[in-house]
């Protein structure tokens, strides 16, 4: 456990040592602040505008943080051969992978926490309720979705041979993750059997990120989802992360360098 913690601490620090990551964080904070300017244009719906824009920015920058943080790691491991230095240390490969995952999601958490804090301050300034449970639930589930995506990103990093191919794969997973539920809905009502089989395969393999999207529900008069649904999504996220990380550790363990 201490070795996993040591790796995660190293990954976390390494992410913040990188200038590009620091620029990304500055951009993320500016994006949250920009919502203040945008809201000025929306007469009588300022708070809604701040919330919607900030939630969008939090998810987008969380995704970018995962991509950037992992890209830095993969580049350093493959091109600068830093992985060899780690492999000679008394640490299991699975511990290294778990530590790496923990480091990445910690980096995302810090980024999301900064943006959420900025958003809450702006909501307060605009006269809204910054502690609204709907907003906090939306941020939490957005982060949970990104944790699932980070686990898939780690799995993909073990099978990808180059950084660009990994970036393409993860971007595709992100897009498909939001689309699968809609694709399934479309084919269930109209498509033929062959298309349905293909879409069902994608639907079960790719993480269903739309399940974590509460951003579009915070204005619903009927309120947020039922607790049963939220528990199902939590269970789904836990299982998806476990399966992805186990598979990533397994592949990494078998890999020869």
């Amino acid at each position, binding site marked *: 456990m201490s070795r996993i913690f040591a790796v995660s601490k190293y990954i976390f620090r390494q992410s913040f040592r990188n200038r590009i990551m620091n620029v990304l964080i500055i951009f993320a904070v500016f994006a949250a602040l920009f919502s203040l300017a945008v809201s000025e244009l929306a007469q009588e719906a300022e708070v*809604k505008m701040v919330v919607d824009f900030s*939630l969008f920015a939090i998810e987008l920058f969380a995704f970018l943080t995962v991509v950037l943080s992992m890209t830095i790691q993969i580049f350093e491991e493959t091109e600068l051969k830093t992985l060899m230095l780690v492999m000679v240390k008394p640490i299991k490969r699975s511990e290294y992978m778990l530590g790496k995952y923990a480091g990445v999601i910690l980096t995302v958490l810090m980024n999301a926490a900064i943006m959420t804090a900025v958003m809450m301050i702006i909501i307060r300034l605009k006269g809204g309720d910054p502690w609204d449970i709907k907003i906090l639930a939306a941020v939490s589930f957005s982060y949970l979705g990104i944790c699932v995506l980070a686990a898939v990103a780690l799995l993909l990093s073990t099978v990808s041979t180059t950084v660009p191919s990994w970036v393409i794969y993860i971007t595709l997973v992100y897009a498909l993750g939001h689309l699968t*539920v809609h694709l399934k809905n479309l084919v269930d009502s109209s498509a033929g059997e062959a298309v349905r089989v293909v879409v069902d395969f994608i639907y079960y393999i790719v993480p269903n990120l739309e399940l974590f999207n509460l951003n579009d529900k915070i204005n619903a008069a009927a309120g947020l989802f039922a607790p049963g649904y939220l528990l199902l999504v939590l269970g789904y996220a836990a299982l998806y992360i476990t399966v992805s990380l186990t598979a990533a550790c397994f592949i990494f363990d078998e890999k020869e360098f």
Partner: protein
Amino acid sequence: MPPLKRTIFYFVINAAFALMCVMNFFATKELKSSEPKWYFLSAHSYTKFSQIAAVSFGYRALLADAEYINMLQYYGSSKAAGGAHKDLLSYINAITDAEPDFTFAYTYGAAILAFNLKRYDEAVEVIKKGISYNPTFWKLRFYLGAIIYSRKGDTLKLTGLLEQAAGFSDHPAVVDRMLGNIYEVSKTPDFAARYWLKLLKTTNDTETKKYSAERLKLIIAAGKIKSPALILNNL
């Protein structure tokens, strides 16, 4: 990894994956049952590319905000004012198509159309669309009632809508008072008196209690009800 350990490992991973698929299936089922049909992309749901992209990537609310700013800018432009804002309805529809939960867009848009531009039919169309997507949001019925009552004097339609609004637990007390006033005009004095009496006994709102008592006194004083004793005994 020894063969047996590897077999067990594969079995556990596959079992976890199967359980994950089951959870995904049930969570999606729950999502589908709790959301209206417009929430998902279908052959007839969304027409613009921006809407399809927003729904696909989960930023419907943000797109609606952009459309809302578009609408405000259109309404504020002098060029559009010269043309009597003839496209305002389509601007409002663009907002509510992107995010049908954006209830303020219905009330705001309908208020502009009805009270500022005197285009009542379009205002009613906006509110009716809002009601179809947000049936539990009482304010929309209230606005519809207000538009019709204030500007068209169509009390029959107004009564039905206010009765629906009064059926919601979170309706404002002013709905009850408004309904009572309409009953006094459109129904018999006995019916109106019974309504005020019921309201007097059930409402928690002090102002409504006071108002109900005043209206009851006036109805009884006018001498139009058939059995005033029945009302007075229940007071």
